[in-house]
Every structure is written in C-alpha cells, then in structure tokens.
C-alpha cells in the first residue's frame, strides 16, 4: 500500500509539465552558460538550480489550497497530512538531484571544459569534484524547496513562495552577501576558494541551510493546522 501511495504522490507532485520544464531548464543552462574549467560547472549550476527548486516545490502544499482540496484535507489526521507533504517534498528533491547530476554531465558534453587537474595538478579528482558538488547541491535544493513551500504555506499563496525565495536568492547570490556572510552564506560552495582543496569552510553555509530546514520542518505542522 505504501508503494502505491508513493506512486500516487509521484503522479501528483511530478506532473509531466514540471519534468519537461526542469529538463529543458538544465539543457538550456548547460548550452548557454560558458565554462572553461571543470570546477566552474558547480559554480554555474548551484544558484540556477536553487531558483529552479524554489519554483518547482512552491506548490507542494499550495496546490491543495488552489484546488480547494485543502478544505477536505483539514478533516484528515495532522500526521497523515504532514507525511503526505513530506513525501512530496522528498520525491521532488530527489528528482531535482537527478536533474542536477544529469546537468553536470550535459556541461561536460556541450562545453567540454578542461579538467581542473590539467591547470592545477594538486586539485581533487573530477569524480571527487562531482560528488562534492552533488552533496552541496542536495543541501541547496532542500533549502530552497523547503523555503518556498514554507512561504507558500504561510501566505496560502504559491507566488509568495516563489517570490520570497527569489528575493532571498537575489540577496544571497551577490558579492555584497559574500562580503557580509562569508562562508556562512547559503551559496558558500559557489564563493569557496577553489584553489585550496583542503578548505572546507564552505560547509558552514550548508550547515546554516540544514538548520533552516529543521526549523521549516518544525513549523510545518503549525502551518498545515492554520485556518
């Protein structure tokens, strides 16, 4: 039964139009965003996928409000509702992570960047770079998807979720935010010192993301209960 419910959640939260636009987004990005060395791929992809995650996941619960199903949902046990929203978020985040991984490959395919080690011999391997990017990207996707869903639930409006996330994205993906927040910035992976392979200070920014996600998960029951 759980498998069947998960399959239905997948049909609800991953409709064809979302799959198509997210794949188109990553294909177009990998075609138009120039990179010359492989370490630039992560830098090019992380902020772009953050805004894709915000737009993608803003309707996780808001679609229940828009279609007036939320009035029926109110009658269901709170735990069931939280689990349903949680499952949908996880499914969408997993899909976006797959899109990120595919996008990384598209950059290699279309842009043919130089291997990082060819210009800096002590740099980490290409595979290590990829896994590192995937870990950082996973946290960013979870952060922006939780942010947009929380804002959309708070204001009962999908566009508030997308708009609020966009404003934060614009503020954080800037040189000013980098000067102000340094390694505590959500986009610390983008602004990290790529030539220092042993510099892991960017993990602080990702820790901030995870703390926010825990807080967002904690307020979700209250938001779903709200009239």
């Amino acid at each position, binding site marked *: *039964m759980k498998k*069947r*419910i998960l399959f*239905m959640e997948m*049909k*609800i939260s991953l*409709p064809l139009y979302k799959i198509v636009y997210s794949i188109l987004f990553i294909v177009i990005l990998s075609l138009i965003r120039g990179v010359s060395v492989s370490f630039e791929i992560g830098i090019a992809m992380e902020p772009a996928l953050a805004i894709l995650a915000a737009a993608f996941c803003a309707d996780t619960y808001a679609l229940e409000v828009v*279609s*007036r*199903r939320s*009035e*029926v*949902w*109110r*009658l*269901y*046990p*709170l735990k*069931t*509702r939280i689990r*349903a929203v949680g499952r949908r978020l996880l499914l969408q985040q997993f899909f976006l992570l797959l899109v990120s991984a595919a996008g990384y490959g598209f950059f290699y395919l279309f842009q043919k960047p130089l291997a990082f080690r060819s210009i800096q011999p002590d740099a980490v391997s290409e595979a290590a770079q990829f896994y590192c990017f995937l870990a950082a990207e996973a946290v960013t996707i979870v952060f922006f998807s939780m942010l947009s869903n929380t804002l959309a639930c708070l204001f009962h409006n999908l566009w508030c979720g997308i708009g609020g996330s966009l404003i934060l994205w614009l503020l954080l993906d800037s040189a000013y935010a980098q000067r102000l927040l340094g390694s505590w910035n959500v986009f610390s992976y983008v602004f990290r010192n790529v030539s220092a392979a042993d510099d892991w200070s960017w993990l602080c920014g990702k820790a901030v993301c995870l703390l926010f996600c825990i807080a967002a998960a904690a307020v979700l029951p209250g938001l779903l209960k709200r*009239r």
Partner: protein
Amino acid sequence: MSIQINNLTVTFKHKVTAIDHASLEIPTGVFGLLGENGAGKTTLMRVLTTTLSPDSGTVTLDGMLYHEKNYAAIQKQIGYLPQEIDLYPNLTVQECLEYLGALAGVPQKLCKDRISNYLEKTNLTAQRKKKMRQLSGGMKRRVGLIQALLNEPAFLIIDEPTTGLDPEERIHIRNLIVDFSKDRTVLFSTHVVEDLAAVCSQLAVMKKGRFLYSGSMQELLDHARGCVWDCVAEDAAKARELEQRYRISSKQYVENGIALRILSRTKPDIDCRPQNATLEDAYLYLTGEPLPR
C-alpha cells in the same frame, strides 16, 4: 447525531458579517439548507467542518464542543463535499479515491470495497480507470461525493452535490444520500429547491447570515398556503402590469396568453385559481419583500 449551533457569529475583513447571531439544531436525517448567494451557507459549513473559527457563539456535535482540543475527534466524524473542488487531475478515479481514503485513515481493504460499492451506486464503475481530468463536471462531482462518504462519516456536509448532474443522475445521488442518512446526519445545501423537496423533511432558510426559518418542510409550505394563484394574462402588457403589482414565481407562454403564478395574500383582481404552494413558492414567500395585500 445532532448538531447544536448557538448564537453563532462569523465576521470577515472590513466588518463583513457572514453569520449573524444564528442558532439552529440539526437533527439526524437529511437536513436542507436553502438560501440566496451570499446568505452565509458556505461560511456555516466551513465552521461546521472546523475550517473557520467563529467570532462568538458555540457549536456542539453530539454534545462535544467545537474547540481546538476536540477538533481531531470532531473531524473524524465529518465527511465534506465543498462547493468547488478539483480532485487530482493526473490520477485515475480509482487512484484518487484510494489516495483520499488512505489520507482519511480508512484501511486499504475496506477502502477498496467502499470505493467499488459507491462507484456502482453512482454509475461510475466504467470510469474507474479514467483520469480525473477526462471526466465531465457531473462525474467529477460524483467522485467528490464518494470521497466524502469513504470514511462513513456520522455527519456528512454536502454543498451543492447535484450541480452539473443530469436529471437521472440527480435522482441517483438523491437516493444515495437518503440511503446514507439512515442513523446519520446529512447537511444538504443547494439552490435546487426540488432536490431539497425530494430528500429533506427538515430544513433551514438563510438570508444575510440569519436563519429566516428552521423546521419541517410541511410547516414552511403551510406558511404559503392560500397565497399562490394561477392566472393567464391575455397579452404582454397585461402580464407586465401584473408583474409590477404582484410577486410572480413563474411565467410561461401558453396558447391563450401568458400563464403567471402569483404570490399574494388576497385574491388578485384578475380571473385566477388558488394553487397548492410548492417549496419554491414558500421560499419566495419567506425571503422576498412583504407580499401585496
């Protein structure tokens, strides 16, 4: 199961009062709720489904007070079909109902049995593998009703359940509601007066957030007894004149002129015959301006 509403008031932004110190008792059986657009019917149903909190007044369900601490227990006993609901367009009818049944906490086997039973009763068995987006408005409405019945609620609240249904389907749905209402309470809100006449023995009429009437159908009909007249106006000019002087509940072109159904306490000054009041006449009698003498 009985629902008691005492002195209930709900106000929205800009001091719009949707329900104004309303009191009502809803007994077991099908209870009709009738009223013009904006009368407060949907707001009342939202309070009863715990979607809205009232500003003042109390509601009890079998003695259990509508209060945050009791909401979980109350919600378990309610089934609700809102006026507008767009069920999951990408899911098939069967999947959609299984999904909503699982969310409602109905065990899988029981849920499947109930789905088969209700699909048959609503003539939707052939559509069970169709996607929700492929269904007509009337079919979607029937699926909406089934989702409200899946947890076999003790208190069923249905807002315009027959909208978009053809006459035969309306009769099916009405019969299903009557069957379901045995030992249960069904609050049936509609604009279609004949649907209420067919299924309810008790009803309430709302206007501007207040209950104008609450009681039996027969009593309401008795209110309008002796006030309904049928006549035929020979031409359009005469019909217009009568329309200005009397309240008209129906108008129809016939062979010898225009047949009019007049609501008036005294016999109109035209050749006419007294008629039995219908629920529509009684509703107009109750909600309109005072009748001409």
